[in-house]
């Protein structure tokens, strides 16, 4: 059976072959970030999770693949270094103890592509730091990511605290758990649950439209 493009990418990640993985992505016919994230990066990383579940690879292999994927994302979609202040600002972080940051990184990249100034904190950011940073930056949007069930109680605290900031930021909650569990009780109407990349993009487009019309 022919292997899918996503599977090819997953194999390159597992081999630790960052140069080939970069090349593979660069030669894709459609270079739209959203398409690459949705059709290649995300399914490739899910496949790697399945391989662990099927006992075909170890956690060490997963770590290597994560590192390579992170490198490729950083290399291709570099966070812009220009200093100019942009009008729309967003901040992205994983809850404390949370190490699954690749999805968040992709969302951050989508916001950047659409002209937002972003601050990406990646894995495990304690609430006090998030709060301090948000007070300084005053982002309109704060994106949180949660993938581990034990972190759910903490989620409640993050959402409540951050949504109460003086500039009333919109809190987006994403991560692997959103598709498996009902997170409404934790978010408590103070945030918006985003289940996947498409929903994030849809929300973002609608938000911009409302902003223009307002």
């Amino acid at each position, binding site marked *: 059976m022919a292997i899918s493009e996503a599977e090819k990418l997953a194999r390159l990640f597992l081999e630790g072959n960052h140069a080939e993985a970069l090349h593979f992505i660069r030669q894709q016919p459609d270079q739209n970030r959203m398409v690459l994230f949705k059709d290649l990066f995300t399914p490739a990383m899910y496949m790697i999770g399945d391989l662990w579940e099927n006992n075909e690879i170890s*956690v060490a292999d997963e770590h290597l693949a994560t590192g390579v994927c992170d490198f490729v994302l950083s290399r291709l979609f570099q966070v812009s270094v220009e200093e100019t202040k942009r009008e729309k600002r967003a901040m992205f972080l994983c809850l404390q103890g949370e190490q699954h940051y690749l999805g968040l990184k992709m969302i951050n990249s989508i916001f950047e592509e659409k002209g937002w100034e972003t601050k990406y904190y990646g894995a495990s950011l304690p609430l006090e730091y998030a709060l301090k940073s948000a007070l300084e930056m005053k982002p309109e949007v704060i994106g949180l990511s949660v993938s581990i*069930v034990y972190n759910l109680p903490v989620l409640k605290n993050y959402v409540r605290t951050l949504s109460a900031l003086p500039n009333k930021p919109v809190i987006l909650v994403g991560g692997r758990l959103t598709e498996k569990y009902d997170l409404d009780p934790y978010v408590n109407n103070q945030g918006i649950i985003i289940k996947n990349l498409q929903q994030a993009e849809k929300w973002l487009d609608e938000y911009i439209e409302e902003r223009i019309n307002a």
Partner: protein
Amino acid sequence: MPVPYVKLNKDGVILIKSSRAEDLLGIQVETIRDCFDEESHNKLMKYMMPFSGEKTFEANIRTKDQPFLLCDVFISWEEEMAHVVFIPTGKHVQGLEEKLLELRLRLSSTDFELFEKKEALEEAMKRLDELSGPFIPISEKMAFVPLFGDISESKMLTVTGSALKAAYEGQFEEIFFDLSATGEMDESGVQKLSELFRMLHYMNGKPVKIIGVKPKHARQLNSLEVDWPVYFETSLKEVLIEHLQFEK
């Protein structure tokens, strides 16, 4: 028993726990499902039907002190009973995680535009090194290698690669190295150049010849106590005249 061990019936109810298993999992656990992190349940279920032989898999175990701890799980079935041993994977994966974290921090602080420029520069430097020691066949038996610029280790390594390849492909009896256009020499560069001369000597059965040595080089070579397996000639001009007369 020196390892965490539990014995189960086919419904997954724990019948016996070793004292190490109690230390790891706590005294209260009743079923094997209780020992596994929710996300590892699917994986566990694949091993809960009796099979022959023994199997090993990685899973996150819910311990007394931590919500999950990565363990290698060994399982074998005997009649309707399963024997399960948990070995925490411990330090090596933890070490890996720390390395990954370091890499991640490094990544977030890397300016990739600069990084790419650096890569391009390195490529250009290598190209420059290659061009600083061209291997020129003058006749079928004679080759000429003028060295340009400073004699550094990286340049000599690049020159060595191309010179050995060319010398291997041609059948040269005499190879001349010309130092007229060289600048500074450092110790490691001279060292690598010596190795190249020695290799060419072995390949050809004849020492290479050096021309264009300046007094400055002679002093430097002397102070580095270089013992090159070579002949020194004065200049290319003389060598060529001599060679042409010989061929006539």
